[in-house]
């Protein structure tokens, strides 16, 4: 992509702007309660919206078959995350699951 540098600069400027926002505005503006409440749902909503297609649509179409290894490995990771709440262990378990599935079925 050609505009990757623009993406990085704009993404960085917006991120800095949000970090600076209330430090700058202190005493001039309060965050509305409803917005504060909604912010709690931003990470699970955005990240789930990325997870679902990555697991269910690895080739850009819905794939619910047993040969969708990413879906299987994803469920392994969900199980590990749920039981252990350990970030690194979750990533390692999911990655190993996918490697093993790909290795066994040599696609």
């Amino acid at each position, binding site marked *: *992509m050609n505009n*990757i*540098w*623009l*993406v*990085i*600069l*704009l*993404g*960085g400027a*917006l*991120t*800095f702007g*949000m*970090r*600076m*926002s*209330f*430090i*700058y*505005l*202190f*005493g001039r503006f309060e*965050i509305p309660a*409803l917005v504060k*409440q*909604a*912010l709690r*749902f*931003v*990470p*699970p*909503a*955005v*990240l*789930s*919206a*990325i*997870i*679902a*297609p*990555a697991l*269910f649509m690895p080739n*850009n179409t819905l794939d619910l078959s047993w040969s969708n290894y*990413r879906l299987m*490995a*994803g469920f392994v*990771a*969900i199980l590990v*995350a*749920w039981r252990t709440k*350990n*970030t*690194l262990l*979750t*990533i390692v378990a*999911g*990655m190993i699951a*996918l490697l093993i599935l*790909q290795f066994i079925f040599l696609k």
Partner: protein
Amino acid sequence: MNPKLKSFLAGVRAESPLLVGVFPFGLIYGALALAAGLSAAAAQMMSSIVFAGSSQFVAAQLIHDDAPGLVIVLTIAVVNLRHMLYSASVAPYIEHLPQRWKILLAYLLTDEAYAATIIHYEEEGFTPTSHWFFLGAGLSLWTTWQVSSALGIFLRKVIPSSWPLDFAAPLTFIALVVPVCRDKPVVASALSAGLVALLAFNLPFKLGLILAALVGIVIGTYLENRK
């Protein structure tokens, strides 16, 4: 010892357990960003200019998926919205500082630096040198993130390219989402966002992602208020 230096080192010390967790993340980010198609320079610059872990993973994933630039920028902004809360939370403690300090500390205001610093402010209260604590926590995290990103970028060149490293991004997101799914509104928010993302996948410009996130946020907030 100079009280400023003492406070700075206390910040570094308070941050250090968090650094252990951040380091492997940086490694994964660096390797993943290259696997997603970023150049080594772009991957490293993202770590220093955007400097916000989960949004960098998201950006790498979207670059991999060929999403348009504007959608990527918007998504980075949405993922980083929570920093406004941190900003509001530390604002009263650094209000007296000169502007250049505020700019520096705002740049260093990551999840991990915030976590260590706000605990310090709440426990010790305000002291004349406590911004040095903030600086110590923020700067040690910054250094760790830059070094681990660089190592990850280097690692990518060592790891065989047949390894599905791009899968590290959704796995990381699973590791972040599953543990916060503790109450019904969050679970409903996550599930509805995932479902809408699948249904709206074919919308142009990856707008399905933004739509799905909005639906998830609205549903979660609605259920929370109905309780």
